[in-house]
């Protein structure tokens, strides 16, 4: 028996597998047993009810989709009254995700969400289609610091900061979030993208821009997780392109303590629970007793840097 549990700060997850915000809801309980997941992650909520972006909100690309949903929802009051109880019917910890347009409202919303039934507050400071200072704070370390300071002061709940792959220097932003008191870092949100249809010369999405979601992006996020895990001491959660147990292992080797999964659950609603099963088996076959051993276990301390030596080692 493998111990799949991981600790993200003070929160213990029974396994490192979580859905990704916005790509999941309790509706998935129609297909799989949600009690098996490491955590339940709600769709990002905003203060006021929002319709979201114009349709089409999704289009297929070469290797995945671009999407632009626009954070639709019924607002925070409805969320607390109806959606939190819906998730609380299940056992895994509830991670709520929140977005706001100003640092003040971010803090206020975090405070308002700090209620029983909410275990973790994930702050989505990286909505790709928003301006750097209006919801996409994670594009700059100063904005990150500012918004995270307010958030930290507003709650005693664990706060996880979701960062943006569109930022140029992910490490400085991660460090800013850590210094402001984040309990964990979630890497990453989606890649700002554009698809233009060659049949009618129009953008494929109603919102013009959208976030690219594709298994192909995993190596980019893997690099970010690795870089951030080297510099920060709080846990990192890797999100991007996980479709199988080996992907979870790879993220953990790079330094992640857990993963989030979006696309794979669209393709196969049984993906998340299957990955948990496969992860268990993968560890078992290799005699790994505690999956947490894998965190940061990449073997990169004895790389052969002399090209003349390396290229004599064969294929």
């Amino acid at each position, binding site marked *: 028996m493998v111990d799949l549990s991981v600790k993200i700060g003070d929160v213990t997850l029974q396994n490192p597998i979580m859905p990704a915000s916005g790509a999941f809801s309790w509706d998935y309980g129609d297909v799989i047993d949600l009690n098996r997941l490491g955590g339940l992650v709600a769709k990002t909520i905003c203060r006021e009810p929002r319709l979201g972006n114009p*349709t089409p909100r999704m289009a297929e690309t070469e290797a995945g989709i671009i999407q632009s949903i626009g954070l639709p929802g019924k607002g925070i009051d409805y969320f607390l009254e109806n959606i939190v109880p819906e998730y609380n019917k299940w056992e895994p910890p509830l991670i709520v995700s929140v977005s706001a347009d100003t640092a003040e409202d971010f803090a206020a919303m975090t405070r308002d969400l700090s209620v029983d039934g909410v275990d973790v507050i994930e702050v989505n400071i990286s909505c790709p289609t928003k301006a750097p200072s209006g919801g996409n704070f994670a594009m700059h370390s100063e904005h990150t610091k500012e918004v995270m300071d307010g958030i930290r002061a507003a709650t005693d709940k664990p706060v996880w900061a979701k960062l943006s792959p569109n930022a140029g220097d992910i490490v400085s932003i991660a460090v800013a979030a850590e210094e402001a008191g984040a309990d964990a870092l979630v890497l990453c949100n989606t890649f700002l993208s554009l698809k233009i249809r060659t049949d009618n010369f129009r953008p494929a999405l109603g919102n013009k821009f959208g976030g690219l979601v594709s298994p192909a992006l995993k190596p980019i996020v893997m690099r970010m997780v690795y870089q951030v895990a080297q510099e920060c001491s709080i846990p990192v959660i890797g999100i991007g392109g996980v479709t199988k147990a080996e992907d979870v292992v790879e993220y953990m080797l790079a330094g992640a303590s857990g993963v989030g999964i979006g696309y794979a659950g669209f393709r196969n*609603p*049984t993906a998340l629970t299957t990955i948990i099963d*496969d992860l268990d088996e993968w560890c078992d076959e290799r005699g790994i007793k505690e999956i947490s051993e894998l965190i940061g276990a990449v073997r990169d301390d004895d790389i052969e840097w002399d090209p003349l030596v390396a290229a004599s080692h064969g294929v």
Partner: protein
Amino acid sequence: MTDLTPEDKYSAKPIRIGEVDPHPDKPTGEFISIVVSNDYVNDEYLKMVVDVPDRALTAKAGQFYHLLCPTPDGAEVWMRRPMSIYRVDTGNKRLEFLYKKEGRGTQGMAMLEKGEEFNIVGPLGVGFWLEEGWKNIVVLGRGVGLATLAPLSQLAAEHNVGVTAILSARNPEVVMSRDLFEGLGANVIEVVDTDGSSDVDNVEKILEGLITDGKADAFFTCGSNRLLTLMKRLGKAHDIPGQVAMEQNMACGLGACYICMRTFEVDGEKTLRRVCRDGPCFNMQEAVGW
């Protein structure tokens, strides 16, 4: 190294025929169906028949399945394609889909051959419903909309409700589903473009006749904005309730992603609803045409 298979890339535990169902009580499942046949019914439309595990047979009229189509061009078809249940054949434990070959997904679907596996998720969404007191309903559809409407004939038959089905098509050769409707006792009226009988004016006359004859306790439609607009207008004028099945592109199909939004008007206020979970079947008077 053992041989690789597509299963090494994506993780899933779809339920297979004959396997123990780990979640017999859940409303929706990921299933491996097996293609029994997949043939053209005319130039553009195909009918696929698949063997399915038991739970997949719980699908109701108006519900849909979300299909993982194979690739026609080497690149993956990244998202599932929603497809209405055309027929649930509980006796043979089979499902049928009637579909139009359009883009990448349906072209991939058309490549599937007898004996091949086809991963399907469902049943999904809110189907059509029959209300107390409805004795006769009118079903009006065109093209692939008929695939969605066809199971209504079965539902109505089970509830002893009479059905008049108005099937609209370009020409008599492409009128589909006649057998399915007739087989379950529906009164079928064909209207076609070639002789002008499918004109809105003529269809309106037919509908008015049915209303006069007391054959129209409720209206059902799908697939044509022209026909939806007509039925909405007549329904409003004559206070006849109705339902329409709507379409939108989808990702999750389960209600989580908010990709599949369509506009509805409720009590004079416009709002967005999810086709996959709030529908695809909606109160016709609330649907906003396109």
